């Protein structure tokens, strides 16, 4: 492997029979070795584009001792020089040869022992000398010669030839002695040569280093791996080829193999930094020994970039997965919502910390129990029904409000969004539930609802207060009738003037009037009662018909007709009937008041029920009053906003909160067909 240089520069030269015996040395030596001609031939000079006059002058002076070969161009010279080289002792470039320095440089590798003389115009002599002095790759035997000193030229030429020949003979002597030594290894050299060629083409890099890490040689593949040519690397330290941070590992590797107590393990070296691209080499070291003892180490390099990258990607993916899993686990454990996993029988299989703190059970206590055991009594039925439904993969996640019981027996309310989990193979496998504790929110809601109900009650009582005159009048009529009828009847009876049928008719009138009074009282009492909200199905048309007698108390007073326009049949809605009655009565009360200033003939109140769409029921209360302006309309539902002289401004605010509590909508049209106002509220029909 010590002969890479020679082989790579020119295999053709190696196979040349004339140099077949050589193992080391420069090309100059090779040539010298080939040239076995005796000293009697004094020299051969190649002239390139030299003026004919100069040539003849030289021939005249050196005739017989030196032969001349004349070539026209430097290109021709370069092409032929290689063949002629062993027999060339000097080179003379003519004045007109272009770029003489470059030509000299080109000649130099072919044979650096050939003296080169460059003819110049005298005025260019100094400039050329300067250029030659600072040009790289030029030996000291390249010199300019001014044409003004042609006289001395033959002598200088002779001296140069003689100098070159002496150098050659010295080298030859050295080569001959080495040749004697080299013969011993002749057979081995052949093997080494083939081995080297094999290794040159093998897809592994081989690098020989001495004990100090100085590179002795490398194969082509190693050069490709390190992005260097062998020329650049020979004699260079490993430290220049590998990143500093990896040097420690390399040195250890070399040191281990130098003391070969055990087989050194390969080392992966990252050389990415040195190349700008990701690159990993696996380096194995074995000791390089020759007979004289330890020489260094052979480093076997293998490009493992793809493997390392794949490995690294796998590690990164594994790490990412681990991080992601940990994150999810932390998320699930630390999330404020309780999380429950159940199997397809609703038996708990997992709960998180929030569940434990929310419910007061430890994870061990909760797992294995049926989810229904935690449900509050009031929701058990609903929950049970929901659980027994056939799971549908296509169904989206719904949100439910559910009441639960904690370990201490406290009732908590959560917003739950159960997600049914389906396995592609086994179908429904269980349920994932996330519970948000809304107990406090629920309590606030309930307080607000209670508050609203209290206000609504106050409002009802207030309405009754405002209607007290009308109500008194309403009750007065039957009482008056009863008093008069009974007294009259009694008098007739006592006077013996009572006819059978007259008494009969009178008593039935009395009874009729008593019932009428009682109806009013019952209705009023139910209207102002303050009970818990009772959600029940409401037939809106029945409710309207029921509330009309109350409306008529007032309507009669102001002598205006109440007209009903009811849509039949209407689906039932859910709600508290007293509250909805209140809304209708309140709106009717406002409508009647709005018509105080209206001409009696034009007064009229219409209550209309309808279905704007199949999911909603609408009740509209229309008056024929003056209507309302947009400014009033904008604020009409605001609390304490009133247009009445003695109004509190709470009626419509309460009306609205009642409708809101029923998930309905209330709207106002300030100018209906009669020029009056229409209040319309819409309530949702519950899903069947």
């Amino acid at each position: 492997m010590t002969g890479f240089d020679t082989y790579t520069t020119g295999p053709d030269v190696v196979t040349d029979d004339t140099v077949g015996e050589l193992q080391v040395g420069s090309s100059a030596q090779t040539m010298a070795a080939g040239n076995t001609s005796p000293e009697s031939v004094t020299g051969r000079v190649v002239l390139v584009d030299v003026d004919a006059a100069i040539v003849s002058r030289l021939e005249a002076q050196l005739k017989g001792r030196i032969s001349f070969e004349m070539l026209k161009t430097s290109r021709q010279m370069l092409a032929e020089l290689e063949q002629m080289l062993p027999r060339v002792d000097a080179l003379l470039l003519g004045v007109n040869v272009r770029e003489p320095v470059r030509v000299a440089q080109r000649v130099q590798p072919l044979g650096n022992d050939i003296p080169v003389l460059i003819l110049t115009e005298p005025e260019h002599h100094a400039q050329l000398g300067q250029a030659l002095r600072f040009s790289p790759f030029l030996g000291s035997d390249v010199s300019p010669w001014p044409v003004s000193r042609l006289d001395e030229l033959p002598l200088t030429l002779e001296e140069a030839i003689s100098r070159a020949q002496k150098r050659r003979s010295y080298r030859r002597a050295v080569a001959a002695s080495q040749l004697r030594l080299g013969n011993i290894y002749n057979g081995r050299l052949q093997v080494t040569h083939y081995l080297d060629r094999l290794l040159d083409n093998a897809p592994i890099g081989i690098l020989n280093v001495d004990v100090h890490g100085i590179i002795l040689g490398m194969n082509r593949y190693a050069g490709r791996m390190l992005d260097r040519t062998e020329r650049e690397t020979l004699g260079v330290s490993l430290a220049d080829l590998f990143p500093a941070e990896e040097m420690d590992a390399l040195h250890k590797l070399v040191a281990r193999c130098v003391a070969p107590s055990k087989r050194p393990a390969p080392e992966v070296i990252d050389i990415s930094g040195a190349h700008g691209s990701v690159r990993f080499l696996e380096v194995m070291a074995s000791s390089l020994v020759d007979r004289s003892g330890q020489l260094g180490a052979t480093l076997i390099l293998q490009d493992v970039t793809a493997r390392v990258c794949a490995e690294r990607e796998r590690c990164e993916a594994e790490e990412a997965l681990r991080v992601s899993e940990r994150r999810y686990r932390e998320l699930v454990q630390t999330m404020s919502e309780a999380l429950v996993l159940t199997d397809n029988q609703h038996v708990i299989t997992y709960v998180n910390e929030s569940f434990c703190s929310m419910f007061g059970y430890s994870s061990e206590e909760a797992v294995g129990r049926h989810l229904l055991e935690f449900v509050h009594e009031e929701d058990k039925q609903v929950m049970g029904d929901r659980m027994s439904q056939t799971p549908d993969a296509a169904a989206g996640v719904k949100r439910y409000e559910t009441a639960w019981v904690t370990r201490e027996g406290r009732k908590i309310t959560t917003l739950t969004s159960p997600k049914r989990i389906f396995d592609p193979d086994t179908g429904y496998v269980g349920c994932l539930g996330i519970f948000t504790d809304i107990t406090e929110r629920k309590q606030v809601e309930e307080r607000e609802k209670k508050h609203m109900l209290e206000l609504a009650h106050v409002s009802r009582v207030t309405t009754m207060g405002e209607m007290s005159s009308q109500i008194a009048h309403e009750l007065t009529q039957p009482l008056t009738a009863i008093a008069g009828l009974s007294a009259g009847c009694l008098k007739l009876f006592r006077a013996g003037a009572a006819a059978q049928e007259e008494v009969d008719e009178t008593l039935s009138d009395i009874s009729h009037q008593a019932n009428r009074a009682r109806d009013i009282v019952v209705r009023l009492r139910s209207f102002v009662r303050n009970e818990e909200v009772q959600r029940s199905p409401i037939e809106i048309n029945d409710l309207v018909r029921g509330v009309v007698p109350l409306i008529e108390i007032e309507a009669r007073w102001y002598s205006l007709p109440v007209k009903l326009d009811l849509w039949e049949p209407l689906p039932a809605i859910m709600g508290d009937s007293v509250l909805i009655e209140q809304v209708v009565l309140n709106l009717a009360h406002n409508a009647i008041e709005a018509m105080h200033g209206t001409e009696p003939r034009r007064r009229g109140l219409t209550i209309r029920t309808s279905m704007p769409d199949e999911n909603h029921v609408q009740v509209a209360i229309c008056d024929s009053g003056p209507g309302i302006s947009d400014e009033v309309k904008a604020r009409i539902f605001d609390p304490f906003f009133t247009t009445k002289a003695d109004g509190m401004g709470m009626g419509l605010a309460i009306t609205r909160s009642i409708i809101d509590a029923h998930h309905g909508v209330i709207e106002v049209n300030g100018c209906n067909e009669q020029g009056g106002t229409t209040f319309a509220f819409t309530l949702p029909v519950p899903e069947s």
Partner: protein
Amino acid sequence: MNVEATDSGQTIYIVDDEEPVRKALRLLVKAEGLDSRCFETARALLDSVDEIGPGCLLLDVCMPDMTGLELQEELRARQVQIPVIVLTGHADVPTAVRAMKDGACDFVEKPFDTDELLRRIHECLSSEKKQRQKADMHRHAMERVARLTPREREVMEGLVAGKRNKRIAEELFISFRTVELHRASIMEKLEANSLSDIVRTALWLDSD
């Protein structure tokens, strides 16, 4: 039973929009032995205002169309002389005050005590009867006085003022004899038997 206080010519006119109340009032009045006539609205009564005779009007103030007070006003405008008992639905002092100012002779709150109502009705009827008699006397006196000549009228005024014949003759610059002749004529025209009859007629004359 205050039969002697009423006479057969009196009728109770009932105006109330509530049928049961009308029925009750009619029965009550009937049991009391009085005639009655019912009207559903004020307008209905006005339509037959010409048929209204002596008696009294039981008027509900609280009625659609035309209220009791409006009817009262209308009757006064048409110079229908009939005492009115206003029936109010509930104690409403301003309504009562207005009714009394407008000439109602009484007001009764519903629901009423039947005996009380009847007592008021009788009071009203008897006062109406008296009023009516008074009005008759006045009218009678006016008719008779209208027969007198202006001179006889002057003489009568002297007599009513308690002046003697001689004094009247001096003041009117007529003879004593002429005064005596006028006096006889006055007695005859006024269908008076004595001076006190003449004085009474003159008093009826002023009673309006």
